[in-house]
């Protein structure tokens, strides 16, 4: 049986509310605290999220409706996950390879992944783009971007 979008969202909301409530039990008590306490409002929010989620799930079961959201094929989700993996790699490379090399790599990898023809032109555009970003953030705005662990660093 295929779950409706409301049911899926409802289940996710209830699960999130449960996890969030569980986290509230770890909030410290403070002598400076007021009557409501640091965990008071979060617990209200967890309850509100759970009730909304339950109502959504119920609506999804009783009256499944295709309202809202837009359908994408499964392939699109994998494409999005792939793009995310490239971005995660960029983040991991940043402290090691430094900003200039990482951003050039990011530009080339994302463009290639999104369909750019591979070759010298692509590499040249990525390098030119990286130089432009480096000039804007490091030279113009004076942001101390990571220099990497290069021997000449």
């Amino acid at each position, binding site marked *: 049986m295929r779950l409706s979008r409301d049911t899926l969202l409802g289940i996710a909301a209830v699960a999130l509310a449960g996890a969030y409530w569980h986290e509230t039990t770890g909030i410290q008590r*403070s002598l400076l605290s007021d009557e409501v306490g640091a965990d008071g409002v*979060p617990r209200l*929010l967890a309850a509100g999220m759970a009730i*909304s989620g339950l109502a959504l799930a119920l609506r999804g079961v009783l009256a499944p409706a295709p309202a809202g959201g837009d359908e994408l094929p499964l392939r699109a989700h994998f494409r999005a996950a792939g*793009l995310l993996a490239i971005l995660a790699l960029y983040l991991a490379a940043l*402290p090691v390879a430094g*900003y200039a090399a990482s951003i050039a790599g990011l530009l080339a990898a994302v463009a290639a992944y999104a*369909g750019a023809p591979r070759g010298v032109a692509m590499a040249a555009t990525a390098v030119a783009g990286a130089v432009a970003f480096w000039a804007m953030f490091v030279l113009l705005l004076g942001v101390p971007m990571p220099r990497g662990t290069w021997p000449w660093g």
Partner: protein
Amino acid sequence: MGLSTLAAALAGVVWGIFGGALPGISPSIAMALLLPLTYGMEPVVAIVLLASVYVGAEYGGSIPAILIRTPGTNSAAATTLDGYELARQGRAGEALGISLVSGLVGGLFGLAVLVLATEPLASVALAFTPPAYFALGVLGLSVIASLSGGSLLRGLVGAFLGLMVATVGTDPVSGVPRFTFGSPDLLGGIRPILVMVGLFAVAEMLEQVSLPGWDKASARDTRLRLPGAAMWKRIWRPQAIGCAIGTFEGVTPGAGGTVAAFMAYNEARRWSAKPDEFGKGSVEGVAAPEAANNVVTATALVPLLSLGIPGSNSAAVLLGGFLVHGLVPGPMLFQKAPDVVAGLYAGLFAANILMLLAGLVILTPCIWLVNRPKHWLIAFILALVCSGVYAIEQSAFDVGLVLGFGVVGYAMRRLGVPVLPVVLGVVLGFMVESNYRRSLVLSGGDHAIFAEDPVSLGLLVAAAAMTAWSIYREARRQ
């Protein structure tokens, strides 16, 4: 107005026109992309830059709407109906000229409404006590009901998610850490800017990577032609209709430029001497929606500046710009930073005038940009996001958070959860919780304090009425 503010207005308008001209890049995304870069700027320069992006994007959105029947922004969708028909008749330059001047008329009219309406409203709000501020936050959250795209429950889930995000960090009363998972990076909370950039920009790119590219625009027949006296006689009435509807829709949180543009188009057709021309290349069908969606760029700021309630995605990003500089929009803004408010008004005026000048020369580079391969646009936008977010605090953790919120935004789109309630929850969460608890400290824990304060009571009744009306409307629709 200083030279730097004027330069910010020009840069914002140009960036906005380019951003608006790119299908998939909404005004709020164009603004969110610039948001991290505003950290090092003077507050007034930063705010004018962001507000000018909004102004420019509304005109920019009409360029692909007219040339390739693909609205660059949602609010330009109504312009495609007649704009593209005019382009097919070889009158694209005329349509673009009408769009530009109608946007100017709308923008200046909206600015006049903003200046006249905001300060009186804010001065009323000056007498607010903690219970009234709490009630104001609740009123802001009740807007969710009308922002939920036809599903109040989904809007509520989004709002609770935003409110939960707002509780991360140090508790505003006792100072104990909450939901930080032992990470010092989370002790200061999650800045709204990170949520916005993730939900708007990263989520859009995750989606765009699997969508086909948009059509190419032709540079043929696109020399921009401003309307002459005879044309002005035809378009002033639809422009006036657009101004009236845009004012109403702009100050109403949740309505926004798209609704205003379609309503203005519809009313312009109803009141036109040539209603049969609509849909077949009517100049009035371009003038009305373009005036309306540009009025909204200014009037949507009325609830933001006077009460601190952002009624649209773009207003929410602008709110993020204020928060970046330690400024809180609302009644106190007029007391604490009157120079920023005055600078914003002057900047918006300059932005509208500069939009006319930039619009005359920017068309060719715009067409060039629209025709760039989409894969490079995605690559450069993501590089800008990663670089800009890192630059705020030199924190790779922040970049990771933005990517995380991008995934959340992508999932929300798939599940039909509207974005704006999440943003409202994030930006209003602190105000609601801190004033709720402060009020109870003042009253010794007695909740009657919220009913005893007349302003608080009035706002809570208004919030209840707004929510009830939305529930009733949704029930009727179903």
